[in-house]
């Protein structure tokens, strides 16, 4: 009996490691060109260590494979480089990770504007940054990591603009010092490495400027606007769990609009926080669906430590073993860090002002904010304007519209990624039946 794991990032690798250590056969399916997920994209000693251990066990890892739909109650429809395939499962672990929260501002569609993690991912894929001028903006600790990656790749980081003000950042730092000193040390190390970079607190992007590509970014800081010439603008506002496959399977999930309620009542932040959303799991990482577990960022944003601990717990649980006490303890600590992060960097309502009437909110269908603002909900906006109906299927503009207008994005429906007609046809007429109908 094979345990199928979707996603070979930290959570998927840890799950595969635990399940195969428990003697189970494991099949890891991953859409990226190599294992490691986003944080270890482009390779890392940690990935090499996992690959060595997994290579000695009954573990197969397939890359460039995307789950696009369900082919039956216990089978997945995959799209691979060599065509469609149906993959049966008896036990399934979802480690589908997260994507960036990208919020619209004037000029964000220009080539050269990327996510904060996006620029990291592209740099790790070989995007040349040597001698390029980069501005990093948005909110959250990912900005530090993004700037560090750009510096290491030889870029000149012209400015790092964090939307949260100094008071918020000091409060976050104090809480890190008290409860997560190792994380504070990590942040301090990144800051030390960036000591020559102008670090603006309470600064937001007013606009990105350019014709065929980005030329400059206008930042708003302390009521003043300043334009900075740059080649790349890496901008991100946190992460959004990838719950689409869990939703298709019928797993209970927490929606972003429910996730922020506690903090909303306590501190008056927005009652919407995608970082605390995700697939609902119990202490053994079991979802609400029989024989389906979930681990890592898809259950709520918490970083690599949470992913590793949850992955390990899920791997043992799927193998029918109780989770090790050490992993449970690490998981608890990492989840508390995740909650602190979600609370400290919840999207600020003021960021809505970045989006002006002419700003394109839906990038796939080029739908501006002016065309969307008057609709009462996502469904009517979608029917009238095609917003969210393009190839990203609302992965970018869905969260943006939740943030801007308070619309609840509808659950994912199949196929959850753009796919070929041949792949879809393979479910209607399985490959074993040679005659097309």
């Amino acid at each position: 009996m094979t345990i199928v794991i979707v996603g070979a990032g930290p959570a998927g690798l840890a799950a595969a490691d635990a399940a195969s250590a428990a003697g189970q056969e494991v099949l890891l399916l991953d859409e990226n060109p190599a294992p490691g997920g986003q944080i270890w994209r482009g390779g890392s000693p940690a990935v090499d260590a996992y690959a060595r251990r997994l290579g000695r066990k009954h573990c197969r890892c397939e890359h460039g494979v995307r789950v696009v739909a369900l082919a039956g109650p216990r089978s997945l429809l995959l799209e691979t480089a060599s065509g469609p395939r149906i993959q049966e499962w008896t036990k399934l672990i979802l480690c589908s990770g997260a994507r960036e929260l990208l919020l619209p501002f004037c000029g964000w569609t220009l080539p050269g504007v990327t996510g904060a993690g996006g620029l990291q991912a592209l740099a790790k894929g070989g995007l040349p940054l040597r001698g390029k001028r980069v501005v990093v903006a948005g909110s959250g600790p990912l900005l530090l990591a993004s700037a560090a990656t750009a510096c290491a790749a030889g870029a000149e980081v012209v400015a790092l603009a964090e939307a949260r003000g100094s008071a918020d950042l000091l409060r976050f730092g104090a809480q890190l010092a008290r409860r997560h000193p190792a994380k504070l040390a990590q942040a301090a190390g990144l800051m030390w490495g960036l000591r020559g970079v102008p670090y603006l607190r309470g600064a937001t992007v007013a606009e990105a400027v350019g014709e065929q590509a980005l030329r400059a970014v206008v930042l708003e800081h302390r009521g003043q606007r300043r334009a900075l010439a740059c080649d790349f603008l890496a901008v991100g506002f946190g992460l959004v769990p990838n719950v689409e496959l869990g939703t298709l399977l019928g797993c209970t999930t927490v929606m972003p609009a429910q996730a922020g309620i506690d903090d909303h009542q306590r501190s008056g932040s927005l009652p919407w926080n995608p970082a605390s959303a995700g697939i609902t799991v119990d202490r053994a990482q079991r979802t609400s669906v029989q024989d389906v577990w979930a681990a890592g960022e898809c259950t709520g944003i918490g970083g690599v430590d949470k992913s590793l601990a949850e992955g390990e717990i899920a791997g043992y649980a799927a193998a029918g073993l109780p989770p090790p006490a050490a992993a449970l303890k690490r998981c608890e600590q990492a989840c508390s860090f995740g909650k602190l992060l979600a609370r400290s960097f919840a999207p600020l309502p003021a960021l809505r002002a970045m989006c002006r009437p002419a700003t394109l909110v839906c990038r796939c269908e080029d739908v501006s904010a002016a065309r969307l603002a008057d609709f009462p909900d996502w469904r009517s906006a979608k029917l009238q304007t095609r917003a969210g109906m393009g190839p990203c299927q609302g992965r970018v503009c869905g969260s943006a519209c939740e943030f801007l207008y308070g619309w609840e994005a509808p659950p994912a429906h199949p196929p959850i990624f753009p796919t070929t007609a041949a792949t879809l046809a393979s479910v209607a007429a399985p490959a074993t039946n040679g005659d097309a109908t």
Partner: protein
Amino acid sequence: MPPDCQIEVDGVPVVVPAGCTVAAALAIAGTLRTRVSVRGQPRFALCGMGQCQECRVAIDGVPHQLACQVRVRDGMWIVSGEGR
């Protein structure tokens, strides 16, 4: 050092490092453009991790491939500027 790959970007031969992504290869070739939007705007990779679909290009004649998720191969030909 990995060997270089000889590829073609919009009809122009380019040598890029083996193992880099198609998105990186486009930037090396001086083309910060992947697809063209429905209203004719140039676009380039945004999320870098296979989610946003902005980096669609045609690779070896197959349309709608994600430039950020595909690595170059020797002899590969890439066409940018695809529409819908």
